[in-house]
């Protein structure tokens, strides 16, 4: 549970930490689109250099990022293998009926692998350098135009920040209940898959029960303090868009431009 790096904040004072959460969010989403512009080894080399440079700027060790990829490694390898085994074209090295290992397959497998890892690295940069609370403020602020379409943007942002806020509590609670059930003789991670799944029931049921209770307490506490949905409210933390934010988005545009140029060649 403590291994999950994606979505965790690492306190620091780097140039990236000081960026407005909105610019980081836009850059993060834009990067996912930009990555699909790359279709050559040179383009991927450029993306790697760019991403590694941004990772370096964050001031967080490379190892932390690798740990962030680790939980997803099987998914990534699966996707890579699918490309390698079933894609045909170019010189064929191995041919077993439907399974072929071809030149195109290997190249495409490599691309898929790079895309996954780069996207994870880049979004990890965003979450590692932005406080969850800033992130939700940023999301709320970016979604604001949707208010016109009667989308309850503020409520969504509030829900998001409340759920982020309670993650540590939930982890604590899980640990406590696991301890209690272990003291009653449950042994986790033993026996067959079915037996292991059965040991989860005594954890999840109390966890659900207490979460529901907590949610109700929370709702009551909000109500007695006069919370009403749908009203305009000011925010305690003000977001400020600085020149550096515009500059960083400009860099993303340049990156996209370069990739487009490389693509057409």
């Amino acid at each position, binding site marked *: 549970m*403590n291994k999950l790096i994606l979505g965790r904040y690492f306190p620091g004072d780097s140039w990236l930490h000081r960026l407005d959460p909105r610019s980081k969010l836009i850059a993060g989403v834009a990067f996912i689109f930009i990555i699909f512009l790359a279709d050559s080894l040179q383009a991927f080399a450029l993306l790697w250099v760019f991403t590694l440079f941004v990772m370096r700027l964050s001031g967080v060790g490379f190892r932390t990022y690798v740990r962030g990829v680790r939980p997803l490694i099987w998914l990534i390898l699966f996707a890579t293998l699918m490309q390698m085994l079933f894609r045909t074209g170019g010189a064929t090295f191995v041919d077993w009926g439907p399974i072929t290992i071809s030149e195109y397959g290997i190249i495409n497998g490599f691309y898929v692998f790079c895309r996954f890892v780069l996207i994870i690295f880049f979004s990890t940069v965003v979450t590692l350098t932005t406080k969850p609370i800033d992130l939700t403020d940023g999301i709320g602020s970016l979604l604001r135009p949707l208010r016109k379409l009667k989308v309850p943007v503020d409520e969504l942002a509030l829900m998001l920040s409340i759920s982020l806020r309670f993650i540590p509590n939930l982890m604590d*609670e899980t640990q*406590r*209940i696991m*301890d*209690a*059930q*272990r*003291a*009653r*003789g*449950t*042994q986790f991670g033993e026996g067959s898959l079915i037996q292991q799944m059965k040991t989860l*029931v*005594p*954890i999840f*049921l*109390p966890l659900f*029960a*207490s979460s529901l209770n907590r949610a109700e307490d929370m709702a009551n506490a909000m109500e007695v303090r006069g919370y009403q949905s749908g009203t305009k409210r000011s925010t305690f933390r003000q977001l400020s868009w600085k020149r550096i934010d515009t500059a960083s988005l400009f860099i993303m545009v340049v990156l996209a431009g370069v990739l487009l140029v490389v693509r057409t060649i």
Partner: protein
Amino acid sequence: MAMQVKFHNVAADYKLGPIRQSFVLQSVNLAISSGTFSAVIGPTGSGKSSLLKVLNGLLVPKQGQAHIGDQVIEKENDKHVYKEVRKRVGMVFQFPESQLFAETVLQDICFGPINFGVPFEEAKKLASDVIEQVGLEQDILTKSPFSLSGGQKRRVAIAGILAMNPDILVLDEPGAGLDPKGKAEIMSLILNWHRKKEMTTLLVTHDMEDVAHYADEVIVMENGSVVMHEEVRDFFSDDQRLEKWSLELPNARRFQLKVEQDTGVKLPNICLTKNELVEALIKVGLA
């Protein structure tokens, strides 16, 4: 059957991801003889709960050994050591009702015994036996634990531990959050069980009245180590020392000191409960 508990130079710490809490326990030496009722007291964060967790193999010592009966918990242990220790040590956590999960109270109480290899039929018998011990009716066994009141849930949770028939019972503030009457009932049922089964009992508490009423021995913890381990009467005899730890005297003892101060008559013994005080007052002719 009762069991002895011995801690030899135990040190432990918590690790949670990148955050490490260094030495929540440091060189704890402790010997609790079997059949005693000991109260563990100390300020928040002094390591009381960690001490209990070591006892149950939930927190593994970094140094030293904890002897529980003939089992030894140290830095690296076989899995069967944990199983054996947890079978012998019943642990009632703070707010134990949060561990209830089963469809019926019966199933929840049977959960522990069945995990430790008791056949279902026997576990059922244990459950109906133990539910009466905690002062609840038989028909509650078929109800859902989530439909009960807070006090009932607490009793069911404690029953679930007692049904495991532990030799050592460890309780972390079993009365927290209950009304005074409910708390007194829970404490007296624990005391009865302790006497009947000749268990070794450890109770973490902040309430000096509990200590005075139920405990034979007092263990004081501070900054992760045991700073004192004494007979309860010796412990309450030195009121200056208690003041130093900003601990309160039990009401009867405080009243005794006041009486002694005002009348100049010294009572023959140290009184910890109301009944003891009344007897002592009659003996010296003040009541």
